């Protein structure tokens, strides 16, 4: 059945039951500013098999995962989860969006998505965690690499 590949990744999505009430589009903040972005259109295209087209267009990286669509859908289609599944498929094909590649790389180096470079206070002092009495993270790079490798993350995080 169409959509099976997606369901293998996320079992609770139901792209086939959508009856087009458009409630998800009405509440979507991204749809408000981007005319070509409609959550149910993405779900329908994925269901009908137009996965390549969706991945090529890059539209699947716009969703901000506010979850209003998934929460209020009367049929429990879970559009936001369909989009996560599509992102996973795109990544398997080596087409992860660069911002996510960057985040993955940062996690592998720093253990978090941003390096701890300190913050600038209002009186122009650069303060680090230790300066503020906060515990400093101690996460091994090798550990994160191993976790990525064994969970089969399809990104080359380089050195």
């Amino acid at each position, binding site marked *: 059945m169409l959509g099976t590949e997606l369901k293998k990744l996320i079992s609770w999505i139901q792209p086939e039951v959508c009856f087009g*009430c*458009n409630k998800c589009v009405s*509440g979507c903040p991204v749809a408000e500013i981007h005319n070509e972005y409609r959550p149910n259109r993405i779900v329908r295209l994925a269901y009908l098999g137009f996965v390549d087209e969706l991945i090529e267009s890059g539209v699947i990286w716009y969703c901000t995962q506010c979850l*209003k669509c998934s929460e209020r859908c*009367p049929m429990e289609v879970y559009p936001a989860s369909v989009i996560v599944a599509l992102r996973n498929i795109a990544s398997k094909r080596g087409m992860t969006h660069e911002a996510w590649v960057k985040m993955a790389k940062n996690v592998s180096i720093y253990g978090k998505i941003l390096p701890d470079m300190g913050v600038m206070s209002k009186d122009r002092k650069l303060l680090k965690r230790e300066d503020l009495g906060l515990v400093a993270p101690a996460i091994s790079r090798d550990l994160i690499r191993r976790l990525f490798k064994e969970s089969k993350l399809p990104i080359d995080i380089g050195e």
Partner: protein
Amino acid sequence: MDIRIGVYICHCGKNIASTVNVDELREFASRLPNVIVARDYIYMCSSVGQDLIRKDIEELGVNRVVVAACSPTMHLETFRRVLEEAGLNKYLLEMANIREKCSWVHTDPKKATEKAKRIVSMAVKKVSSVEPLQEIRRRIHKKVLIIGGGVAGIHAAIELAKAGYHVTIVEKMPTIGGKMMFFDKTFPTLDCAQCILSPRISEVTKLENVRIFTNSEVVEVTGGPGDFNVRILRKPRYVDEMKCVACGNCAEKCPVSVPNEWWFGLGERKAIYIPFPQAYPNSYVIDPDACLRLRLRRDVCGLCMQACDRNAINFDMKEEFTEDRFGAIIIAIGGEPFEPSKIGEYGYGEFKNVITGIQFEVLTNVSGPTKGEILCPKTGRKPKTLVFIQCVGFRNENFNRYCCRTGCMASIKHAILAKEKLGDVDIYICAPEVRAFGKGYEEFYKRAREEGIKFIRGLPSELKEEEDGTLIVEVYDPISDKILNIKADLVVLSTGLQASENHRNLSEILKVPRSPDGFILEKHPKLDPAATPIAGIFVAGVAQGPKDIPDSISHAEAAAARVMSFLAKDELELEPFKAEINNELCSKCLICMHTCPFNAISIAETDSEVKLIVDEVICTGCGVCASSCPTGAITIPNILPKQIMLEVEAALEVSI
């Protein structure tokens, strides 16, 4: 006597024949012991098929019949009639279900055919052992109880009364008329609801053989079809309806105000009130949960009594119980509107200018809180922009899965009325699609569009409220591919009817099952929608499922017709499958009495002995008593243990 069995195998078109090899089955059947003829035909239930059986009985002397076909719930009666017409006792028939229990649930033809052979073999063995039986005849009470006095109950009552039956209507509310009484106009004709219903109310209240109990409830039902023993609770009005002239002086003086349930929260009424001007009986009533004197049970207040110059108020009235026997019962209890406060994102209950369709109806009603003017609850001013949102609480996995059926037409009606009353207003109806299935409905939908009512094929995700109470409705319109931003003065959540507490209570009292959506279960959704699985109990109107007025009336008249044919004879013919207790084997342990789900078994004591007797009207032949009896004293004719064992043996025979 010689057992001469005829086996008749139905193809049921392709339903059976595409999975079960009917030729092989027929050959197999013809070789079974005592079978003198085996035939197959494409549709055994047709006249041609039935003739095959009849001819064999008349010409070949077949005296036992097996029909291998669909479930007995479909055509058992059909084939029993064939036997009767051919002069054979109609209980010398067994149906072998090779459709629902075989061809419809299996896909492997070889295995399905083997299974069908076993099923037929069982039926042949069984029918060899059955005895001819006679139906049990009991006197029928030609009296009908109708529970619920709304549009459905009233129409059923009128038809039955005109046909000569004695009808009792038991209505829970202080007045009959039901939900239709506070409609203003009805779709698609825009007939005034009162103008349609009031004459019928007048008619039903004048018919001699109709008795109406308002402010009353059915509390207990015992007995069985043709002979139901019903206990009715008559709650006190505290006002003598014969003396009250509905002048209203009492209500003016009453100090207690409570939310008016007839206005669904849009206004208040006093503790002593009349539901609406055309109520029947046309008398005031006191709400015991609101009235100070009744709540506190002390001699306080009493201002209404002082104001009444007819001496109609009587605080000493008490609950009364009435018992009566009825031959048939019609359930016509309607439904309750869905409460949208569960849908937090639409702000109902918090945003004052968000109301339900039922509340909108109340606003348009001349007897309502605004005397028929459409006004925004927050400001009291007329709205300039209205938005209707459809399917609220329905077609939704989190609330009701079914379609409310009346929402689309109700909103179209409301929109057209709003245009009429308010003149130049902007109206949007947000509906994924419009369901306009009835006569004149699609034309009504077109008329709405012609009048400039805008239909948006999308639902809003949430509503937002400005400080002045106007609502921001963001909704996607797929045809223009734009997310509209509408500033609405009034938002109407179009909801529909659900089953209520009444459904649950009555279902328990009458032992009538309900469907998963909570409404009363019909006997068959296509073939028998106005009957229930319990003989003698029928259902009319929204009690069985949401529907509009024309369908409610049709359904009610169907229920009346079913009751008429049910009660047409002087005697009720009951199936002979009733528990029989052999008193010599009975050890008087009373286990059967306690396990019977229908309370059909009772003790009869005389000077010489104690016996347990079964009420044949109530007994449904379920067999629970028979299987509980430790001494085997209880049996059901033609379903004896030894007959069941024959079937079991036939089923387990290894070589087929």
